[in-house]
């Protein structure tokens, strides 16, 4: 806005203010009604929906769903959209930071003196698109359940590991053929053909990127952890898992020095 536009706005505002009503009691009445509505809505939600307590936090557990509160779903869903490992920082920090900066600096790059939304087509369209996309991402996050069933056909010796994988929340972020969510983590249907068992084991222990570490599982229940590694390593995309996949598996974290050091599961 140049000086003339600024002065014109201030003048017009003074006139509108003169024609307005005093804050007390007109605006305060509306505010009070709204405050009452807010407290009634919160109370009704508190009574109706309650505040149930989930099971106690257990770092050694294998049954959990790492899901944020619903109003952070849209941030979490961005992670599902961005796939390549080298772009993960972009999705986790880059996009939200850019959005925050854009929001913060809005008055400084939107120099249009016009205020009527109908006469600011670009700004109004951008605003509506932002709301729609955030609502859409929130909706995706809400419906993305975490199945606890893996339908892959595996040899009997890997069934135990399959059960561990199904119950350990892997499906919240990884896809196994038809089951699980496609992201933020990569698809694991054929993970055995990409990574050796030792690398898989190492990834489970360190928890690369945003993935939680499974080192507690290894310490508390090493046989379950080994089953899990064996099962994952057996997934090489072939119908019948081959016997030799089992050989060379480092049980419970016996790692080759540099195995999997460049791997993002």
């Amino acid at each position, binding site marked *: 806005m140049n000086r003339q536009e*600024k002065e014109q706005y201030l003048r017009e505002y003074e006139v509108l203010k003169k024609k*307005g009503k005093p804050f007390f009691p007109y605006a305060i009445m509306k505010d009070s009604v709204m405050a009452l509505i807010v407290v009634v809505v919160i109370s009704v939600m508190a009574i109706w929906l309650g505040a149930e*307590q989930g099971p106690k936090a257990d770092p050694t557990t294998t049954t*959990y769903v790492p899901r944020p509160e619903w109003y952070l779903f849209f941030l979490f869903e961005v992670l599902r959209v961005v796939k390549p490992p080298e772009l993960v920082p972009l999705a986790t920090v880059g996009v939200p930071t850019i959005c925050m900066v854009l929001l913060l600096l809005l008055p400084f790059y939107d120099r249009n003196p016009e205020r009527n939304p109908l006469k600011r087509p670009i700004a109004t369209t951008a605003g509506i698109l932002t709301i729609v996309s955030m609502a859409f991402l929130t909706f995706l996050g809400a419906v993305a359940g975490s199945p606890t069933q893996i339908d892959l056909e595996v040899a009997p010796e890997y069934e135990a590991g399959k059960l561990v994988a199904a119950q350990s929340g892997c499906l919240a972020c990884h896809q196994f053929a038809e089951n699980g969510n496609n992201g933020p983590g990569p698809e694991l249907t054929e993970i055995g053909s990409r990574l050796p068992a030792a690398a898989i084991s190492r990834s489970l222990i360190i928890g690369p990127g945003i993935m939680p570490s499974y080192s507690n599982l290894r310490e508390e229940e090493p046989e379950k952890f080994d089953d899990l590694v064996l099962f994952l390593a057996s997934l090489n995309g072939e119908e019948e898992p081959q016997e030799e996949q089992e050989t060379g598996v480092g049980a419970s974290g016996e790692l080759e020095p540099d195995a999997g050091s460049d791997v993002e599961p």
Partner: protein
Amino acid sequence: MSRFEKLLPPPMRRPAKPGEGDGHVGTNGKTSAANGEVTALKEQDGNGARTDDAGARVVEKAKDAPADLVGWVDERMGGTSFLTAMLLRKVPKGTNWFYTLGSATLFAFVVQALTGVFLAMYYTPSTVEAYASITYLTNDVFMGEFVRGMHKWGASVMVILVFVHMARTFFFGAYKYPRELNWVIGVVLLILTMVMGFTGYLLPFDQRSYWATIVGVNINGTAPILGPYLSDFLRAGPEFGATTLQRFYAIHMLLLPGAIIGLIGAHLYLVVKMGTTAPPWIRADRKPKDARTQEVDAIPVATNGHRDGSATTNGADPSDDERAAR
């Protein structure tokens, strides 16, 4: 004096214009000295007419008590002129229900603060006892589950209100000159509200909150350069440990509320100082749009104010609302 102004204690009313007084000279509390004189006069009257019913005098005094109290405080603090300016400042023509979203957000925050204090009385921020203290609060404390529910769902309501309030500001163009700074403060408040949600989510210390926080902290850790330090700061070390929960608790109930209260203060100060916007479709004059723009274009800035006769600087007028509000 508007009919609603009578609801205010006399010292907070605007001084009556000359010739408009309703006979009760002195009760308008122009100065606190005047108040004192009035009281003294009344006492004299009472002493002079001893046959008066003592009860009537007590009633008379009791009626004046609120005004006297406000006057007494005002004499020592001088807040009534500020309050009067706050309450009687004019909001622009066309102000509608959309303009209640900000105060609704503020009220949601007040609900969070009050219920949060209640929860803090029972909560133990240690990994060993946190879960049990919530169980006790939920099951055994009177109204415990209700208050915890209010805090839990109040957070969602507050986040929704923050976003709707921001959407209103955006679509009404209310972030433009001269209110850019208030938009910036508002965005910071939005971010702090989201961080509130993130830090508060861990405190119940159940499975959901624990693992969501692990992932959330890992997400912070993927940021270039600063990420790992931020994660270490949030976890109070390289791994999630006993002090992590206390750290989240301190951030959630000391650091962030302090920052939010301070910024809300700045936000409100600017709202009162700059005034709330009028809806963008409301125009100051009823002239046809074309004529108006032509006029504005044609007349130099310096003389433009005469167009309406009241738009720019006025002479001193004690009843002028805008002046009173400054």
